[in-house]
């Protein structure tokens, strides 16, 4: 099957774009990676995602697909030969989709909320909430993995991708706030899972470098703080 007509519009710090990189790697799909400058979006991006104007966008046979989880499911369905990203049983698929929705609708906004929290008390509350979410996900991991390495079992799958893409941003939040979020004695399953996920063949070459991402995060968060300070004067 011709795979040269697969393009990914992404940005290296984006955990959502990372989901798509990983999914494409799982299926061993050759693709062209187009790095977007989010301060100066390309015409291609604006045309391909007029509704949200956001990355990632997968362009396959010149047809754009948007929204990272819709793209991951598309990849699983359009390249249906093994390995599968979603399980085959409808109930297991529903459980996987449930946890991906929890991660996107609840947990990620909490993680994002840490950077936006103003003052020590609000920061602590935001960090506590992220940790509480990880405790819920630890329990989910126990049930889904059934003693194996990943949420999906022996190989990484949908929920692993949905959550694993944020691991470097968890590291950033930990370093910037001098706390531990992925606490090994509270979340032993997730702690072990995190290491295995980052080492996985489909992940390790596309995961952003920890220190580069920290530097990037420091830069944009300090720029944002300056902007807020000057607009409040």
């Amino acid at each position, binding site marked *: 099957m011709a795979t040269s007509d697969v393009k990914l519009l992404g940005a290296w710090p984006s955990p959502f774009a990372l989901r798509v990189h990983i999914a494409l790697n799982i299926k061993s799909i050759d693709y062209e990676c187009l790095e977007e400058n989010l301060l100066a979006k390309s015409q291609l991006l604006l045309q391909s995602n007029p509704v949200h104007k956001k990355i990632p966008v997968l362009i396959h046979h010149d047809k754009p697909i948007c929204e990272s989880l819709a793209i991951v499911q598309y990849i699983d369905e*359009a390249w249906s030969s093994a390995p599968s990203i979603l399980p085959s049983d409808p109930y297991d698929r529903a459980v996987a*989709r449930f946890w991906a929705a929890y991660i996107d609708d609840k947990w990620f906004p909490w993680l994002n909320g840490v950077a936006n929290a103003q003052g020590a008390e609000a920061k602590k509350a935001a960090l506590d909430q992220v940790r509480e979410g990880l405790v819920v996900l630890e329990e989910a991991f126990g049930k889904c993995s059934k003693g194996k390495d990943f949420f999906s079992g022996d190989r990484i799958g949908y929920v692993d991708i949905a959550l694993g893409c944020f691991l470097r941003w968890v590291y950033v939040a930990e370093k910037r706030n001098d706390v531990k979020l992925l606490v090994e004695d509270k979340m032993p399953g997730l702690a072990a899972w995190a290491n295995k996920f980052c080492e996985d063949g489909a992940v390790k070459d596309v995961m952003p470098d920890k220190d580069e991402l920290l530097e990037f995060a420091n830069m944009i968060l300090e720029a944002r703080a300056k902007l807020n300070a000057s607009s409040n004067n």
Partner: protein
Amino acid sequence: MAEELKLFRTWSSVFALRIVWALKIKGVEYETIFEDLSNKSPSLLQYNPVHKKVPVLVHNGKPIAESLVILEYIDETWRETPLLPEDPYERAMARFWAKFGDDKVLTSIFWGVFLKEGKEQEEAMVEAMEHLQFLEDELKGKTFFGGERIGFVDLALGWLANMISIFEEVAGLKMVDEDKFPLLAAWMQEFADSPIIKDNWPPRDKLIAKFQALRDAKLAAAASK
């Protein structure tokens, strides 16, 4: 094997209605359990411990939560009258629009326009109009978002078909102008008139009362800040 299928819902939840519609479209029998969200049953808390919300579908003792997740489960388990298209690209589009409906349209119309007033409402209205325009464009050449018949996206956006007129009456403003959004207005009518949908909608007077109370409470809370 006797199938056991239960749907936990409330009388008014539009999210639960999606599941009612889907099951009826597929001709699947099920038992309804009405919940009082101010006094949640132990069963609900057991079946949806993470969110403690409706709808929850319990199939042979196994619970599924989150309405769009439940819709996909139903579509994959009972294959007649498919809700999602077969083609992967079309399926991706359907998932995109359903998510747009919940993340953007519902947020701007309900939380933005309906539950606010004054300047905040005006700003939300601008956003809501942009969102509705995207839906209008998506309906070009189609009767339903699903094409010739009701599909996944129609069920996901179906709340618009009846709730818009309720929001308009309670808030006293027009949200979907037939002149601005002719295709959307036509779709709302087609959807609302469809046999299964029109027989499975909560009573209008009860909805008006509920949403009037909700809006009044929200505006009072905002004013007292």
